[in-house]
């Protein structure tokens, strides 16, 4: 196991290097400059600015400098926001995005598993159809439409929740719901289909014939075994939530990190683009590893170390 984790960590570093390299060169290949405006800057100032941010060096030297700064975990000053460092932006924005993401994942898991379980246990009854209609709606309505819809109904028509901003728990409900809607629907469908599969298995029949009560069968045997696909979906889910929060953060005026992920590109804010990309990559790589480990713990049939032998 430890050996496996060590190997995975090594791969992670390699992946990260590839991401940094590709992002760096793609970013610099894009036309436009962080300092371009309608009024062209006097050449002296332009040159000074470039020297200040190290943009006057050769591209390769900048790349080397950048790799060093990634290792040191110091991404330098933002080119767009004067006096703020990329590390500041990340440490201010990430906790907000993290809280939003966690709330959304929690909602998606809780509601999704519940809906899916209900649908499977009441297969082909009205509960099943209702749950699946909700799921189809959740998957097909994009989160930004869901966000505007929720805002319109709950905040404007009924005035029960605030329209926007990030101040209290009440402010977090709408954005978290909007962000959770698609993964929730997906989880509901996953849970339903895998539960239906599990219910038909011999060991469930055995459990029934042993006289176990149905709640116990459902909780201990059916749901647990049906969770496998859901757990493996957690990796992509985390990445979807983290990178998908941009639209939601914009609509609800939330000062999170998702916003920098996108606006830094239009601003050509090189240091922020790189810093946020590296940060998100590390986060994703780690969460995928954790999901894989959790997977092996839940399902004893999967032995991580065995993969080596293949």
């Amino acid at each position, binding site marked *: 196991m430890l050996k496996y984790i060590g190997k995975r960590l090594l791969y992670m570093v390699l992946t990260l290097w590839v991401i940094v390299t590709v992002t760096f060169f793609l970013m610099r290949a*894009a*036309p*436009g*400059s962080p*300092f*371009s*405006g*309608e*009024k*062209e800057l*006097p*050449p*002296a*100032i332009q040159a*000074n*600015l470039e020297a200040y941010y190290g943009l006057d060096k050769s591209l390769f030297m900048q790349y080397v400098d950048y790799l060093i700064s990634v290792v040191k975990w110091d991404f330098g000053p933002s080119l767009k*926001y*004067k*006096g*703020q460092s990329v590390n*500041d*932006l990340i440490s201010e*924005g990430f906790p907000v995005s*993290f*809280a939003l993401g*966690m*709330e959304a*994942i*929690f909602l998606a*898991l809780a509601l999704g598993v519940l809906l899916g379980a209900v649908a499977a246990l009441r297969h082909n009854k009205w509960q099943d159809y209702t749950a699946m209609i909700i799921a189809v709606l959740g998957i097909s309505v994009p989160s930004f439409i869901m966000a*505007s819809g929720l*805002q*319109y109904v709950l*905040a*404007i028509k009924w005035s029960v929740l*605030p*329209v*926007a*901003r*990030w*101040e*209290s*728990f*009440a*402010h*977090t409900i709408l954005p978290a719901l909007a962000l959770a809607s698609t993964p929730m629907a997906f989880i509901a469908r996953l849970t339903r289909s895998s539960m239906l599969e599990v219910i038909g298995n011999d060991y469930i029949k055995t459990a029934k014939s042993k006289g176990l009560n149905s709640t116990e069968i459902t909780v*201990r045997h059916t749901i*647990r075994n049906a969770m496998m696909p859901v757990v493996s979906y957690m990796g992509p889910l985390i990445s979807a939530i983290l990178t998908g929060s941009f639209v939601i953060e*914009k*609509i*609800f*005026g939330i*000062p999170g990190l998702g*916003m920098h992920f996108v606006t830094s590109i*239009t601003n*050509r804010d090189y240091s922020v683009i790189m810093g946020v990309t590296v940060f998100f990559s590390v986060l994703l790589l780690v969460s995928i590893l954790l999901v894989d480990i*959790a997977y092996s*713990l*839940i399902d*004893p049939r999967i032995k991580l170390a065995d993969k080596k032998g293949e």
Partner: protein
Amino acid sequence: MKKKLLLFSILLVFSVILAACGGDDDSGEEGTSDNSGDNGESTSDNGGESSAEQVFKANIASEPFSLNPSLANDATSSAVLLQTFEGLTRIGPEGEPQEAMASEIETSDDLKKYTFTIREDAKWSNGDPVTAQDFEYAWKWALDPNNNSQYAYQLYYVKNAEAANTGEGNLEDVGVTAVDEQTLEVELENPTPYFLELTAFYTYFPVNSKIAKENEEWYADAGENYVSNGPFKMTEWSHNDSITLEPNEEYWDKDAVKLDRIEFAMINDFNTELNSFKQGEFDWAGSPFGSLPTEAIPSLKEDGSLNVEPIAGTYWYKFHTEKEPFNNVNIRKAFAYAIDRQGIVENITKAGQVPAMAAVPPTMFSDNEEGYFDAVNIEKAKEHLQKGIEELGYDSVEDMPAVTLSYNTSESHAKIAQAIQDMWKENLGVEVELSNAEWAVYIDQLHQGDYQIGRMGWLGDFNDPINFLELYKEKGGNNDTRWHSEEFASLLEESQTETDSEKRTEMLKEAEGILMDEMPIAPIYFYTNAWVQDENLKDVVMSGLGDVQLKWAHFE
């Protein structure tokens, strides 16, 4: 074994759930207290009777570039700095510059030397006196090329400022001198009749030199180092989220200030901004702090809540005058005359914009509402097209090189471009292709001349026509059209040394006439500020440039 695994997996699931709950609870607790306060305020704002509640709330959409006046170069920073800082002059409620930090202003006969006396009771928000040295320091700091101020060129009217900024001259030679604590002498390159407008602009604001010398990063956050000399001071700056201003008790004219607090939020979504306004969470939605969604404007107009004010800005199309076919003046005229401007402002932009048949906005030249040509004149356009085709030696319209209209990616620019594409096809029989690129790429293409017709707009920096005309004085810089006219340039040169304001206006009008006759640009419309506001909010001063001062604002 299996049981242990089950236990573990349940624990894992629970710990994830608990962690999520924990996170929520944290953010919940943190914010609940602010929220209850907030709710209280917004309800009382809605009620409107609370004469005591003097809290102004608005959305400034994004994080300001910098709240150091010497570094700021954008409208968002300006919206905040105009409340927190004060220059030698301030644009008063009537739109004329009035004495602010300066209590007396003496001008030499040739208009090239100004002597400002700083008022005795002028103080920084920490109690330090505002001195002439603070002005000298701030201006020279901005001009110092090492400080990378992107708006330093605003100071080029001061003698030797340009040389110092480009590294050719010396900072010591810049024509700004603090004779003593109270007296500031400024020498200019040319007599600049609008110089007192400029001293109200943020690049000309002072900086507390004592603090700035000790702490280079004084402007990065709110706190004891962030001191300002205007009606308000910044008490809180939560980056990318909000800015809070409170009255500056040290301000010399503090009795005029009636608001107890200003809260700026940074929501980069204009639908949300308007929705929050409707819920009473903002007292203002729209320009210049934020913006209104175009789709909402008709309904706001209908219910009578929309306010529209013309501002000094022109939306225009630039022609690349060195590339065929737009190297021919008749072709340029044909394209310009065939645009139905009234149709565009009525059906597309909808926020009360004024069709532009001139370069300089009517807020500066009032007779420019009429302009130099008709809002649309298809016959004349066809005549010019025919003439142009003959001059360039083409057989027919089809023989002309393909024409592409470029704009930076945005829904409103796209709609206008499509409408104009259609007008050119209908009125001139010319097929035009559209091409859009994201702003940073687009601006590069324009500067490099990689375009034929390009969209651009200009919002005045200060209230003088020269600000619009000098864009086309020389090739390069802002003049992506590559058009040059000796006569035009020399008229602008002469106007700089003309001390009689009427004669100067005549010269500038004549220059504008040349520009509109040669037509390197086709003006489309003049910008407006469109907004909705709390009905009880009074005495917000909006200048002709469209910026807003809250110094005198209050709720009734």
